[in-house]
């Protein structure tokens, strides 16, 4: 069935290396150097996909990143399959498997094609208008719409490929390896600048490298031959780094750019193993040269989307670069001279060019003269009014344009062809310039937006056709002139180049070409991927959309994977014509990065799996693992959560641990608590200012609990601080708050109180903390440190002693977060695991029980101690927490003090912390559950919510903490916790449930 459309001449394809690949299951062959698109075209396959909305058959239309139609699914492995790959960009490799998208059951017979015949019912905004009501049905509609929509399929398994990130710094970055990029790179390298040149293709030289014609000469040589010599000469510049297969994705401020380098996507499966697939370059360039070239425009006429209709310049590239002819009878449709270049190339390769349809009345350039000499038929002042052929173009209907270009006149001419090239002029690729923050200006003469260099946001320049220089002589002379200024060069090796090229003299631009039928009966496609037509844009304008950003979203023009690279300009042109606006005033839609899609893999790089985030482990972590601990994440820390024994559930383990800690002894790894070493002659004054309570009178060797507020008066963090010496304290913070507390304190010290002599050092990792609590804790510590006087008189609660364990210095604090008699051993982390094991051995006879964070939370809840971040949420003052006792009323100032008597903070109906007991003592409330008084009054008034809830094994009943509106006054009041299936009766109580007299601290 397939024919070979390859011709035997060209320097870019290695016809000695045959490559086999599969398209939709069919085995085909191409050559080394082919793209998937060129290999398909060589096999006479144009039809590659179906359009998004109408499921119309679509063929390969371009040869580059602007391709709207030929987007395919690569591979079918669930971990590496890739959707929406442009067939025009992927290089052919042995074993490549590609599939058409958006069609079922096959691209040749697609059931969705019925949408094409329903298209009169599917205008712009169809989905918005139709599925609006009833609103409650949206979920049902969405299911079906989502199933019939969507292009490719995402992989379903984790990506097994390797990706990489690399930083690069350079003097000059040149984006684009076409002729203007090559000239710029040469001049930069010649000056000795550290230069990087990137190009998205595997071959430098852009379109000039295959431009071999008398009409284009540099220094009396064919332009391609001359350029080839320049490129070959690059190897003499060690300061020039060339990156091929690298596409610029984003141009950010301060000349920070992201580029994706493809490293293995062009290799067969065997050659890919253990190699990095893609590398994301993060480039900081002192200067940037944008030489991204331009993209040929299609023409907008009735049924301009059939397979076999390509951009004229793409037909030229396929024949000159890939040696592939796109048909045997080709017609060209143009409004400029470029199509004549294609005609010359085709003629040279022996491909028949039927007719050139030119909307201009005449042209006298050397290119046109050459075609006239060859004898190819040119229809001046004509337009195509329709095309015929469903899965492949068969013929075109042509008519003469009226003088004003708004209608057609005369007889309809039918011309047979199996391929049509269209050329609507050129669009400079200004995407990167605008991404970087640059503003565009409209050049009326050429109907193009070009960079406004006066509004360049950074040290950069655009050269070549992306700056609107389309003719070879202008392009070269302007590039050299501008680069000389940009790089501050006096004389260059290119100062006396002799350039000859064809000059275009006549122009005629019609954004929407007329047909012999009314617009409503035609399909002039603007956005080929999203199936939006000129009709849709006009409809949107009639319906009142004015902003181009709104028209874009309403019609989805330019919103496909190609982001409207082909026809956004036509949409703007049609809007301008219809509304009578100047295009320059209309402006463009916003170009956002990435220029071409990036893989998630390249964005993430190596930061996957265990490298996704830092994991912090305590020095005792390995012991916890060995002893079957379950862990919970607290910030980046792994904290032992509970230690299940013999298949215990979490509830059973926590009940056992909690009971053991109050009956005998419990041991907790508290090393994750933040520790800040505070020194300096003003340390006491500093603590006075940052905590709510008074610190000046704290004796050396004593500990004190402190509450830290934000300036808005809300509780921020808490912890115990110990005075180690006259000018030396150690502060503990919550685990999660450690870093923030340190930076907040640094902020105040550096900016508000620079006069204070205070130095802060974080020592969280340097010290490990082992907390032993329970009535037998004293026995255990006595066994480990026999000479330490543990009597309550000499070592009372809230005091500290320096000591030694096996000659290692340690700090022992008597502080308690459980309400039990407790000791905290702080020791250098290197020794912590040994000391922990020593404690375990010493405690064996007292049934010492390791417990985790869950038991710690339960024990402190029994005592009504808050956990900042669990019982508080940044909206509670100390008074709301019933902790008025901790506010140093005599202190003149501390952080947040003034806010404690703002009109809002003194309200009595603020949410306040209370205890809750359930009517049924076995009923444990859900944390986060709402509290209400009257369930029948609608709307039900929410009074607060449960913040902490546990079953207490020591009290043998359920306990909870909650925040409740005016809670302080509501002691004894009954409230309801409404749950999905039941209402739970609760009573507001005091926040302290266990040992209200604090007798156990000294037990």
């Amino acid at each position: 069935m397939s024919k070979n459309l390859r011709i035997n001449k060209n320097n870019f394809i290695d016809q000695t290396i045959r490559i086999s690949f599969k398209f939709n299951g069919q085995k085909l062959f191409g050559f080394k150097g082919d793209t998937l698109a060129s290999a398909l075209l060589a096999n006479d396959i144009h039809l590659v996909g179906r359009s998004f909305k109408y499921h119309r058959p679509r063929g390969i239309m371009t040869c580059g990143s602007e391709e709207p139609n030929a987007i395919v699914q690569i591979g079918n492995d669930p971990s590496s399959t890739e959707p929406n790959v442009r067939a025009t960009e992927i290089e052919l490799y042995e074993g490549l498997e590609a599939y058409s998208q958006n069609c079922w059951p096959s691209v040749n017979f697609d059931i969705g094609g019925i949408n094409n015949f329903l298209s009169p019912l599917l205008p712009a905004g169809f989905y918005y208008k139709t599925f609006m009501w009833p609103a409650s049905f949206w979920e049902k509609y969405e299911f079906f719409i989502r199933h019939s929509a969507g292009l490719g399929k995402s992989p379903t398994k984790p990506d097994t490929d390797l990706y990489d990130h690399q930083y690069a710094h350079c003097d000059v970055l040149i984006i684009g390896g076409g002729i203007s990029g090559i000239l710029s790179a040469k001049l930069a390298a010649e000056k000795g600048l550290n230069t990087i040149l990137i190009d998205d293709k595997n071959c430098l030289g852009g379109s000039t490298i295959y431009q071999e014609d008398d009409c284009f000469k540099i220094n009396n040589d064919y332009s391609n031959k001359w350029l080839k010599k320049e490129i070959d000469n690059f190897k003499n510049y060690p300061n020039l780094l060339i990156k091929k297969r690298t596409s610029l994705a984003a141009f950010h401020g301060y000349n920070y750019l992201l580029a994706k380098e493809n490293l293995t996507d062009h290799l067969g499966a065997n050659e890919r193993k253990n190699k990095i697939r893609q590398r994301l370059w993060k480039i900081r360039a002192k200067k940037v040269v944008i030489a991204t070239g331009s993209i040929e425009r299609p023409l907008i006429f009735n049924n301009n989307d059939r397979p076999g209709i390509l951009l004229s310049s793409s037909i030229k590239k396929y024949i000159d670069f890939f040696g592939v002819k796109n048909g045997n009878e080709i017609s060209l449709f143009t409004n400029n001279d470029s199509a004549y270049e294609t005609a010359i190339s085709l003629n040279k390769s022996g491909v028949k060019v039927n007719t050139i349809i030119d909307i201009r009345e005449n042209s006298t350039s050397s290119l046109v003269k050459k075609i006239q000499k060859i004898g190819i038929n040119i229809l001046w002042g004509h337009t195509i009014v329709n095309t015929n052929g469903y899965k492949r173009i068969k013929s075109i209907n042509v008519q003469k344009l009226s003088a004003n270009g708004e209608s057609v006149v005369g007889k309809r001419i039918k011309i047979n062809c199996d391929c049509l090239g269209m050329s609507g002029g050129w669009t400079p690729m200004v995407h990167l310039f605008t991404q970087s923050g640059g503003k565009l200006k409209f050049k009326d003469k050429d109907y193009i937006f070009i960079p406004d260099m006066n509004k360049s946001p950074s040290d950069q320049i655009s050269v070549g056709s992306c700056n609107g220089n389309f003719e070879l002589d202008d392009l070269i002379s302007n590039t050299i002139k501008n680069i000389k200024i940009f790089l501050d060069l006096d004389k260059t090796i290119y100062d006396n180049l002799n350039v000859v090229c064809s000059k275009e003299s006549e122009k005629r631009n019609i954004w929407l070409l007329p047909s012999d039928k009314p617009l409503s009966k035609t399909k002039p496609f603007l956005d080929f991927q999203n199936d939006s037509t000129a009709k849709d844009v006009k409809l949107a304008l009639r319906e009142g959309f004015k902003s181009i950003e709104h028209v874009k979203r309403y019609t989805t023009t330019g919103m496909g994977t190609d982001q409207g690279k082909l026809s956004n300009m036509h949409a703007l042109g049609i809007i301008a014509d219809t509304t009578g606006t100047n295009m320059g005033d209309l402006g463009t839609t916003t170009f956002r990065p990435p220029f071409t899609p990036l893989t998630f893999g390249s964005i993430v790089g190596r930061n996957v799996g265990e490298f996704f985030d830092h994991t912090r482990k305590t020095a005792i972590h390995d012991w916890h693992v060995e002893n079957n601990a379950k862990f919970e994440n607290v910030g980046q820390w792994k904290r032992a959560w509970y230690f299940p024994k013999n298949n215990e559930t979490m509830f059973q383990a926590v009940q056992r641990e909690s009971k053991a800690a109050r009956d005998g002894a419990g041991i907790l790894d508290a090393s994750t608590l933040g520790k800040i070493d505070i020194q300096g002659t003003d340390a006491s004054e500093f603590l006075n200012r940052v905590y709510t309570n008074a610190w000046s009178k704290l004796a050396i060797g004593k500990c004190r609990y402190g509450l830290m507020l934000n300036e808005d008066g809300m509780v921020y963090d808490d912890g115990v601080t110990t005075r180690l010496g006259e000018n030396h304290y150690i502060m503990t913070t919550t685990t999660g708050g450690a870093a923030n507390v340190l930076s907040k304190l640094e902020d105040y010290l550096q900016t508000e109180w620079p006069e204070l002599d205070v130095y802060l050092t974080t020592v969280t990792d340097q010290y490990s903390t082992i907390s032993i609590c329970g009535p037998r804790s004293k026995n255990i510590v006595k066994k480990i440190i026999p000479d330490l006087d543990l009597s309550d008189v000499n070592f009372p609660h809230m005091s500290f002693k320096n000591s030694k364990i096996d000659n290692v210095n340690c700090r022992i604090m008597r502080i308690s977060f459980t309400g039990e008699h407790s000791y905290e051993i702080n020791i250098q982390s290197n020794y912590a695991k040994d000391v922990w094991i020593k404690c375990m051995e010493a405690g064996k006879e007292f049934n010492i029980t390791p417990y985790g964070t869950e038991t710690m939370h339960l024990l402190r809840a029994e005592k009504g101690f808050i956990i900042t971040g669990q019982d508080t949420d940044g909206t509670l003052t100390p008074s709301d927490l019933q902790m008025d006792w901790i506010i140093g009323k005599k202190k003149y100032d501390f952080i947040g003090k003034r806010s404690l008597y703002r009109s809002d903070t003194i309200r009595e109906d603020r949410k306040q912390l209370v205890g809750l007991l359930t009517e049924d003592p076995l009923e444990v409330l859900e944390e986060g559950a709402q509290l209400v008084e009257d369930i029948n009054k609608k709307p039900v008034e929410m009074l607060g919510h449960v913040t902490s809830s546990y079953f207490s094994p020591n009290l043998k009943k359920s306990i909870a903490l909650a925040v409740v509106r005016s809670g302080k006054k509501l002691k004894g009041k009954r409230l309801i916790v409404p749950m999905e299936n039941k209402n739970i009766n609760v009573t507001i109580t005091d926040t302290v449930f266990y040992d209200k007299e604090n007798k156990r601290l000294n037990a």
Partner: protein
Amino acid sequence: MFIINCPYCGERDQSEFSCGGEAHIERPKQPTELSDDQWAEYLFMRKNIKGIQFERWNHAHGCRKWFNVVRDTSNDKIHAVYKMGERPPLK
């Protein structure tokens, strides 16, 4: 991603820094003598200018020092960098 010239370390990538909001808002020396409105002015009110803005920045992943930056929020151009306590330029 802009580059900030830390007055203590030199030019570094923005990712090393954190922004602390508007600069030159001094904490009142005698908060107790302020009315609710005056205190709220200090506590809550911050400018969000399109254009030249004076900001506090912290070299969080570097020297941990706070300093001031004059930045044009419309294009991220940094016009000046100066230490805490130094007089702001252009103001």
